[in-house]
């Protein structure tokens, strides 16, 4: 794309992104919505977060990993265990990344 095209693409992305974020905050009245959807939307945020994370952990170039010796999986498991133990966001991030790096550089996985 030319710089000008990228410029307009960016403007569009900003508008779309802001409209999504503001979607339910813009109207004055609550939007009419069937009960099941109202109920189901409670699960959407956790589903979305999980959907973003999972492919990062078990896919390489779009293919499912075919070895158990993948440092990312063990890093993530370590992060999960740390969270279950200490409920610490910082610990989860640092511990999970630490285990992944230790396996990658220590064991050469």
């Amino acid at each position, binding site marked *: *794309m030319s*710089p000008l095209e*990228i410029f307009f*693409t*960016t*403007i*569009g*992305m*900003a508008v*779309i*992104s*802001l409209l*999504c*974020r*503001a*979607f*339910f*905050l*813009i109207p*004055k009245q609550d939007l009419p919505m069937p009960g*099941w959807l109202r*109920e*189901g*939307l*409670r*699960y*959407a*945020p*956790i*589903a*979305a*977060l*999980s*959907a*973003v*994370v*999972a*492919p*990062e*952990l*078990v*896919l390489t170039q*779009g293919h*499912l990993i075919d070895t158990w010796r993948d440092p*990312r999986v063990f*890093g*993530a498991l370590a*992060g*999960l265990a740390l*969270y279950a133990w200490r409920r*610490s*966001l*910082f610990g*989860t*991030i*640092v511990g*999970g*990344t630490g285990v*992944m*790096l230790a396996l990658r550089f220590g064991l050469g996985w």
Partner: protein
Amino acid sequence: MTSRVAALRAQALALAGRPMFREGARDAVPMAIGIGAWGIVAGVAMAKSGMGVPLAIFMSVLVYAGSAQIASLPLIAADAPMWVVWATTLCVSLRFMAFSFHYRPYFAHLPRPQRVALSYLMGDTNFALFIRRFPEHVPGQRYDEYFMGCALVTYGIWEVSIITGIVAGHGIPASWGLGFAGTMALLALTCTQLRSPSTWMAAVVAACAAVAAYALPLKLNIVVAIAAAVAVCVLIDHARTGPAGAKR
């Protein structure tokens, strides 16, 4: 003009002194290492896409959505039509729509311009921390102040780190595992939302669906995953509470 600036400054100082604002800011600090790492990775990816430093910074400040920006890079590099980039942005941003649905009871009383301004600052980190701090809406709390504290810290760290990544570009090797720190940050946020067996179910179904549908174009795998998780959880809730849809 100077009086307006002074008034804004006084307003900002007053906000920074509020206890709720400080609490929100404090709660966001442990996430800083994850946000910072991910911001640098996103910045490096933007630098390597070849769009040039000014446009990359322009996009980072205006769009302020890491996942959408990263998803757009290969499309822009491959000269994809604009609508493809926008459709991908929409798919990646659908989760923000769910966030705004959850925020509504907390912010509905504010004037509309302020609601839209808050929306611009919405992100995964703010949302997860906010819902962890306020699982239920009880009237009378200064939710907006907590949100602003959390959101401004997040925004600051993100912009500084992504611009660092854009400028430093190739100087930062991929082997440092910075990208993985970003993934771990999202994993930690996901954990904060696992409050009940149904939310576990939603997370597992979404994870499987997102992996299984990964080959779909336009990042539709995320949309498929959300739809699948929502459908399964609603069906299970109904099966548990009876077909008449009796409320617990």
